[in-house]
């Protein structure tokens, strides 16, 4: 028994294997994050160390494929065992229902996209379910809670904005002190995506407004772009 022979196999093929195991580990980490393949690596090193000297003659590739199949086999049993448990304990989600919902929404999208059976005539500026029709700009008249002047409903918000001394200048120095800001959570890593309470920029929101100029001039129809 030459000790150097064993060491030789161990050193050269172990390098190949550790690289392979690293790859597998990343793979297995993605799929089953709380499971690790490191266990197999320690097993392997034991196996490699105990490979008898006669095996020295076997080509490395043969040895590699042998180990590869073993590991693959083991991983397959891992997955099977895991899903056996999930199925037996009734922990699997109701995939049939999810599938049904997906199918329904796909069908709905096809139907809605089809212009021939469009049963919704734009919805707006026609009669509503109560048989009423409404002007594009709401014409109900009431008095402003702030200044008491009579104002038309459709123009109330722009009026109130001026009346309460809000508007452009005020908006520029927006700082949010709402408690909501403190109570929010965030998924740490999303630095560049969405930060609704950063308060940095007023465009950091989905907005329904038209361009600022139109809003200030109270022009007709700007309420519904």
């Amino acid at each position, binding site marked *: 028994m030459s000790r150097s022979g064993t060491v030789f196999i161990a050193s050269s093929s172990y390098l190949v294997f550790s690289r392979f195991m690293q790859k597998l580990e990343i793979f297995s980490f993605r799929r089953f994050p709380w499971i690790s393949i490191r266990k197999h690596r320690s097993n392997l090193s034991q*196996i490699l160390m105990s490979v008898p000297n006669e095996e020295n003659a076997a080509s490395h590739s043969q040895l590699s494929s042998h*180990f590869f199949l073993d590991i693959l086999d083991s991983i397959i049993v891992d997955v099977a065992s895991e899903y*056996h448990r999930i199925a037996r304990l009734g922990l699997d989600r109701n995939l049939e229902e999810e599938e049904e919902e997906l199918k329904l929404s796909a069908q709905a999208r096809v*139907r809605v996209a089809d212009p021939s059976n469009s049963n919704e005539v734009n919805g*707006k500026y026609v009669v*509503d379910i109560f048989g009423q029709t*409404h002007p594009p700009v709401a014409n109900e008249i009431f008095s402003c809670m702030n200044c008491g002047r009579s104002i038309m409903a459709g123009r109330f918000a722009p009026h109130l904005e001026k009346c309460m001394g809000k508007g452009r200048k005020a908006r520029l120095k927006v700082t949010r002190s709402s408690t909501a800001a403190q109570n929010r959570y965030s998924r740490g890593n999303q630095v560049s995506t969405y930060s609704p309470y950063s308060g940095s920029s007023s465009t*950091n929101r989905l907005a329904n407004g038209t361009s600022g100029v139109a809003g200030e001039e109270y022009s007709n129809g700007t309420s519904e772009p």
Partner: protein
Amino acid sequence: MSSRINQPINGQIILQSCPHLAEFRAINGSKAFRALQDCLRVKPPGGRAAIRRDPHELPRCGACGDFAHSRLYACMTCAAVSCHAPTGSSHAAAHADSVPVGHEIAVDLDRAELFCCACRDQVYDRDFDAAVVLAQNSASILGGGSSRLPSPQPENLRKRRRVDYRPWTPDLRERVFLGSCSTPLDCVDPSLDLPWGLRGLNNLGNTCFMNSVLQALLHTPPLRNYFLSDRHNRFFCQNKNNGGNAGNNKNGRVCLACDMDAMFSAVFSGDRTPYSPAKFLYSWWQHAANLASYEQQDAHEFFISMLDGIHEKVEKNGQKPHSQGNGDCCIAHRVFSGILRSDVMCMACGFTSTTYDPCIDISLDLEPNQGSSSKAAAAASNRSCNGEADCKNSSQNRGISTLVGCLEQFTRVERLGPDQKFFCQQCQVRQESLKQMSIRKLPLVSCFHIKRFEHSSSRKMSRKVDRYLQFPLSLDMSPYLSSSILRSRFGNRIFPSDEDELDASTEFPSEFELFAVVTHSGKLDAGHYVTYLRLSNQWYKCDDAWVTQVDEDIVRAAQGYMMFYVQKMLFYKATERQGGS
């Protein structure tokens, strides 16, 4: 695989045991698995358990000497190791046959799962799982050993006793009293059998962001029941100054709940002409003085801000330092408040730090590559077992995002890399870690906000994501609960956790029904909000003053921005009542 043998009932798993395991337990009692305790090896911290008598032992089959076999089992009675293959020779089965009785149960050495050699199937046992979880825990808390799961308990998670439902019908005296003190609503148009409370809201000048959210809130079952049952009467509200209404007292304290009450009265009055929520806008602006110009308003931001407004008033008035997550402080939080759990596990030592945060909605990323999410991949592989792979795959190829996918993304394990190291209390240094979110407590009404918005701070650019998102009409939230997440982290072992206790104590099922969808159409700075409401299982489109009846397909195909789901239990009650009126 898809057949469910043991359905979990209300979070409790019912086990069906094989006769051999039952017999084994009868002979050995609960002590049977105690001997295994010392053989359980968990590597790395928080990882999977394996069975080794000695940490460096290399087990091999007693019959054929094979050590590289992927399935090696140790007999639970005599510790003999044998290999097993589903086809061909099974030394494990041979071992069980070789002795007359009692050697059927074995344990999988690499997976720490029980196996019945006679049934040739994996079997499950509560005590065995508990032993494995104990080993996994002690491995992750190396030197500490103080508490099993160091989890600070939020004060509101004490068991709450529920009061049984008792139906009430007024007796003669009560009926007289009710009749003398109230004026019955006269139904405006009885020919139209439309649900109560359907009423358009006038656009006050680009205020559809407000109208859309108000429509959803006006038809939020628990919120509606609260206001319609006179729980917050604006005429007796303590929050306002000496009964002076804001019309003649500009400096009077605003109470958004009073304005909500006024709006509920108006909307449910039976009057079908559009209502102008002017007073509400005025009060809200007074509350959110720093949220300036209405032109750039976002519906979600309005939602948060106004619930915050309702909450704040109660807070100031009550003088009690309620925590928001408590959920008992005000109607806004009683309805919308849930608790999120966030676990950060140190990748070096396995120490897990847990924090709980209250939330009133869940903001979800609209992931562009949802197919690559780990759980989606796992689900897909599971699906392929069901032979329904093509449907799922095709939908993934088309790049359809789903709400369920977003929730999976939200609760998936996230690796915090070298740039986001967190300070590990046990290692006393900053370490790389794994982070995972889950839902500790579900609210009565779950609001999901989809981040249809991408903001690049480096390029000073913002854009709206117009991608379609599929959302179900019924949603089961159980996979995202802390108890489920925690269980899956411990290899789906059955063990009594404090999370399970909570699930049992709240007794609320995790099934939700969709009742309102706020959609946004158009561009980032010039768009329009429309709400779809589901009343008595019919969908209505609320587009400012216009209320129209729409097909379910239109809603399913709509571009959802905020989705409101209510606990199924409350939803069906609501439709019944609507149908009866």
